[in-house]
C-alpha cells in the first residue's frame, strides 16, 4: 500500500480540493443512505419472518392437538358401537 501511494502522482488539492471532495462525498452519502435504508428493511423483513415462523409453529401444534384429539375419540366411538 505504501509502495502504491509512493508511485501514484500527488493530487493538487488546492482551492478546488474541497469542492471535489464534497461532490464525491455526496455520491458516497447517497449510496450510504440507500444501504442504511435497505438494512432497516432487511431487519424488518427478518422480524416479519420470525413472526411467521412462530405463527406456522403455532398452527402446526394446533393441528397436532386436533389430530391427537380425533384419534383418541375414534377408538372410544368404535368400542361403544361394539
Amino acid at each position: 500500500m505504501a509502495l502504491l501511494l509512493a508511485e501514484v502522482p500527488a493530487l493538487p488539492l488546492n482551492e478546488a480540493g474541497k469542492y471535489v471532495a464534497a461532490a464525491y462525498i455526496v455520491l458516497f452519502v447517497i449510496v450510504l443512505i440507500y444501504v442504511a435504508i435497505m438494512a432497516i428493511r432487511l431487519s424488518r423483513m427478518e422480524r416479519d419472518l420470525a413472526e411467521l415462523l412462530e405463527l406456522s409453529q403455532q398452527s402446526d401444534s394446533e393441528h397436532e392437538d386436533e389430530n391427537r384429539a380425533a384419534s383418541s375419540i375414534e377408538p372410544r366411538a368404535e368400542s361403544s358401537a361394539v
Partner: protein
Amino acid sequence: MYGRGLRSLSILTVAAMALALALVFFYAPLEAEQGFLQKIFYVHVPLAIIALCGFVLGGLFAIAHLRTRDPRWDMRSYVVIHMSLIFAIGTLITGSIWAKGSWGHWWVWSEPTLVSFLIVFLLYATYQPLRFAIEDPERQARYASVFAITAGAFVPMNFIAVRLSTAYLHPRTLGSSSNLPGSMALTLLVSMVALALLFATMCKYELTAKHTRAQVRALRRRLSGDDGRSPAGRGRSAAPSLHPSTRAGL
C-alpha cells in the same frame, strides 16, 4: 426471481466504481482552464445522463404496462423513476458544488441547463404524491403510467430545447462543441458505465426487496386464514402492489 444475478452485479458495480475512481484521480489529466475542479464532471455528468435516461426508461416501462396490463411493468417503471429521482438529487447537489467552485454561486437562475433540469426534477417529484393520492391499486398504476409516459416524453424535448438555446454558461461535455481528449473521454465513459451499473444494482435491490415483502405479506395472510388474493389489506401506499407469485427479473 428478482434476486437472480444480484451478487455478480453488485461485485461488478464495486469493481467498476473502483476503476472509475482510479481513472478519475490518477489517469485523467488536469483540465487547462478549470484544473482539479473539473474532476467533479466525472460524477456530475454521468449522474445527470443516467437520471434523464432513467426517466425516459420509466416512460417506456409504463407504455409496456398500459399495453400488457402486467403489474410487473408498473413496478419496474416505479422503481426506475424512484432511482432516477435519487440520481437527480445527486446531480443537483454536485452541480451546485461545481457552480460554487467555478462561478462563485451555488445556483444561477438565468442558466437554461440548470433551470430545465430543476423543472424536470420537480415534475418527477410529483410522481410519488400522485400515486399516493389514488387508493385503488389498478387506477393508481394506470394513472401513474400515463404520467410516466407524458413526463418521459417531456425529458428529451426539454433537452433539445436547452441545446437550441443560445445563451448558456454551462459547458457542453458531449457533442460537436466539446473537444474532450481521449484520456478524459475514456474516464468519462468508465464513470458512466460504473454509475449505470450502480443504478441497475440499486433498481434490482429495490425490486427484490419489494417482491420479497409481497411474498412475506402473502404468507402472513395465508397463515392468518385470509385467502391472500386481495391487495385490499395493504393500506394506502405509493408503491405498486405486486402479486407474490409473479416471477421476473429486471
